[in-house]
């Protein structure tokens, strides 16, 4: 077969089961693409030996008739996931050389289902960023390119997005704390799903902001997201926030029939100064869902405007505490000390050397908002806002809304380095449509829906009810079919 790496999970599954290809062939094809794609900076640790061993085992499993939907599917794994014996650094210098002695629940679930790991994927350091530029490895690059400018693949799961969009792998894992799956998916023309908080175990995923972090699939189609979510999800007693609810067959929900479904259009998501192209895309999305038989209603989510500031209090607060363990005492980077220097100098130098500027900024912001005298004004107020944002969504769903349609991002992918001189808040604005979903713990998807005037992909976001990923995926499936997005980046790398 040709173009093996371009296959979706669903197509590869069929080809594998029919014997038209093997997991080893698929894996070798991906490894070859990866070798030729260093210019994308997507893979930061390649694991060909592991991949081929897993592929051989997968072929044996397929032969034995014991395959699952993920058996033999070559994946890229975001560097935030701890993978046994393989460098897992969260794209940070402070975890230099760190190789875990344990496997994260998500990767264990995937490998247990027979999936193949091609390597670890680039990301923003500790998942803090929207452009993949805060990585210690250097940035990943968007395979989409319309002029001489190199574009960001988005962040923090920029390596995952770049690798999937460039067909270096069939799919990838991502994590989403404020939009880190959905924004890069939108920037690269792929599908990304952030599940309901608690759907996927956080055990073994390096924490950024524990109450917001959630792992999810980044794939070439809605069906692939359904298949992969099924393999990733499940109750995990090792994560106290993992929900013990019965698993659904997400793929079986994909009928494409959304007749009678109520789609909410939140008026607060129409931002001042929003590019006309984004507005147009949104209108097109509404029309597609209406044509498919859904009923559109205007809804109000009145606390939306407070979401971004609340997020940028809560996430750094949790991060400042979660990142305290990187102190040079037990693993990772430890600064060299001068004579007479002690533990305080070790902490200060280790953390100053090991963390990049954006991580340091957020640790400082987080420390500040939790400090005595500021806690109520910032952290507690942000928590109250969070509760109100959740209530806004609850009220919309109580009105009978099944899903909410919004733009995924306020713009298409921007140029790498373009934001270097900008106020950090400009970068934070990338998350304006996505953070509400994390604050409310809801499932959200980004579905590629069109191209801008320059030919860059744009995505629409669908937000679902808690635990109703199956329904959300089906709505996304209908949108995907209606949008008919088939564009691929022209290969330049």
């Amino acid at each position, binding site marked *: 077969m040709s173009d093996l790496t371009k296959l979706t999970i669903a197509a590869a599954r069929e080809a594998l089961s029919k014997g038209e290809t093997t997991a080893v062939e698929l894996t070798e094809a991906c490894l070859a693409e990866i070798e030729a794609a260093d210019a994308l900076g997507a893979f930061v640790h390649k694991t060909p030996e592991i991949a081929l061993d897993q592929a051989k085992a997968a072929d044996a499993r397929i032969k034995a008739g014991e395959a699952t939907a993920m058996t033999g599917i070559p994946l890229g794994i975001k560097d935030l996931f701890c993978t046994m014996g393989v460098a897992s650094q969260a794209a940070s210098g402070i*975890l230099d050389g760190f190789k875990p002695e*344990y496997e994260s629940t998500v990767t264990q679930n995937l490998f247990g289902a027979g999936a193949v790991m091609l390597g670890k994927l680039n990301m923003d350091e500790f998942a803090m960023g929207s452009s993949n530029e805060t990585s210690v490895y250097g940035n990943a690059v968007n395979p989409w390119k319309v002029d001489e400018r190199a574009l960001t693949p988005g962040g923090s799961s920029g390596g995952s997005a770049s690798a999937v969009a460039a067909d270096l792998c069939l799919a990838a894992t991502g994590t989403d704390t404020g939009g880190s799956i959905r924004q890069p998916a939108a920037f690269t023309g792929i599908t990304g799903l952030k599940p309901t908080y608690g759907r996927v175990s956080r055990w073994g995923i390096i*924490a950024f902001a524990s109450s917001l972090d959630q792992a999810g699939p980044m794939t070439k189609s809605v069906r692939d997201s359904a298949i992969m979510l099924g393999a990733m999800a499940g109750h995990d*007693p090792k994560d106290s926030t993992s929900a013990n609810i019965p698993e659904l067959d997400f793929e079986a929900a994909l009928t494409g029939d959304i007749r009678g479904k109520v789609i909410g259009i939140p008026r607060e998501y129409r931002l001042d100064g929003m590019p006309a192209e984004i507005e147009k895309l949104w209108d097109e999305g509404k029309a597609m869902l209406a044509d498919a038989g859904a009923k559109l209603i205007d809804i109000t989510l009145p606390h939306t405007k407070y979401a971004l500031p609340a997020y940028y209090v809560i996430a750094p607060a949790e991060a400042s505490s979660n990142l305290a*363990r990187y*102190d040079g005492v037990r693993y990772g980077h430890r600064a060299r000390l001068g004579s007479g220097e002690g*533990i305080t100098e070790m902490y200060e130098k280790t953390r100053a050397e090991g963390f990049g500027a954006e991580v340091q900024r957020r640790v400082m912001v987080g420390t500040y908002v939790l400090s005595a005298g500021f806690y109520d004004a910032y952290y507690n107020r942000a928590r109250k806002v969070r509760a109100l944002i959740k209530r806004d969504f609850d009220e919309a769903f109580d009105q009978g809304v099944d899903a909410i349609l919004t733009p995924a991002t306020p713009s298409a992918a921007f140029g790498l380095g373009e934001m270097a001189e900008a106020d950090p808040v400009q970068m934070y604005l990338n998350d304006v449509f996505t953070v509400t979903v994390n604050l409310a713990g809801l499932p959200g998807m980004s579905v590629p829906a069109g191209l801008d005037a320059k030919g860059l992909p744009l995505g629409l976001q669908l937000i679902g009810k808690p635990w109703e990923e199956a329904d959300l995926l089906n709505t996304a499936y209908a949108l995907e079919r209606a949008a008919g997005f088939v564009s691929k980046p022209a290969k330049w790398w």
Partner: protein
Amino acid sequence: MLDHLAFESPKPARIAGAKEDWELVIGMEVHAQVSSNAKLFSGASTRFGAEPNSNVAFVDAAMPGMLPVINDYCVEQAVRTGLGLRAEINLWSAFDRKNYFYPDLPQGYQISQLYHPIVGEGEVIVDMGPGVARRVRIERIHLEQDAGKSIHDMDPAMSFVDLNRTGVALMEIVSRPDIRGPEEAAAYVQKLRQILRYLGTCDGNMQEGSLRADVNVSVCRPGAYERYMETQDFSHLGTRCEIKNMNSLRFIQAAIDHEARRQIALLEDGGAVVQETRLYDPDKGETRSMRSKEEAHDYRYFPCPDLLPLEIEQDWVDAIKAGLPELPDEKKARFVKDFGLSEYDAGVLTADVEAAHYFERVAEGRDGKLAANWVINELFGRLKKEGHDITESPVDPDQLGGIIALIQNGEISGKIAKDLFEIVFTEGGDPAVIVVERGMKQVTDTGAIEAAVDEVIAANPAQVEKAKANPKLAGWFVGQVMKATGGKANPKAVNEIVAKKLGL
């Protein structure tokens, strides 16, 4: 139900300063290690004395991506403790992170319960002598993780860290400032330790650090405390200092006494007490400043996002309550009531749960007062001499009970019983069999006693005359008869026969 005996409050300790009298006000935070085989949030062992860094799970070492999972048994133990202190149990509680950097705190934060502790208000009745006790109010009990151990004296240039203790479950038991002197403070810790040991929720081993106390001390003028108690307004009290990490009752007393005198001297000199954390130096017998309020850590407490709120069911709490053992106050009251013991003796017997159980088995179906005398005077005395505690006693309760039964039945005298006890203590054996085999039984045959009395009367005519004039001298004859019978004659029978034969 009789919970505890009626009591009056003791007088607060008073210290005469150079100018005026002062009173002490003390509150305590006791850290009690929860008796549990596994840590609070990991499955690692809690065994004391293991090789350094051998009882460490990935989460204890704060490896990236590791998450805490609550150990239900530790929660049960905290609830049991709360019930034992007659405290309110909070069905909804939550964990918070207390953030600070130290090498023996791998996470960079301690998981604790600042805002919503699992146990609310309770009380401890601290016995200060028969009929005198202090009621100390408990403000709260919360669950938290212990830190590891930093070792600074193994190498001149390096420090070492042992994470075995990291993450072990602690209960922090916080009292109100109801303790009024150094002796009361020590007695409070002792009473708390006693209750925890009865409950089986903490082994109370202070040497191994299973029980440690932070002591808050302030001084005030007589009368001020009463105004505080009426209003619960702390401004009536003096500024307090906290003496950290005390693990000896003796040092607690000495530290409080020193600290109170230091504060009084300061105040009488026109100075002011600065709120701060202090350490007690037992070698110098003084406290010194650790850090002041200004340089105090800002712990940046916030709800731990890795853990859901801890929700427990009333039914579960009720089941734990139903399974609670009888506690020291109740047991003591019952010993006084059922066995007719003095409050003092009941207090001695209930001080240790093992000793109380031992006594109850000895006393069951027998004369309680007699049993108490034997356990307290003979057994405890003999054990102390050998350096044994009650669990190591070579005489089991059935054996001691056997001896007491022989006394009660008049088969042996008290004096013979002591010999018998010594035999059982050193050689073992069934007391009832030993008295037969070794001919130790009391002679109750009046014929044999009469013969012995006749013999003594016949041999001592002069004494007989004296005794007839002065009946008090009859005792001399009784002694002679006892001597002649090797102590086995029943003293009551001898008394009667001597009196009869002498015509008294």
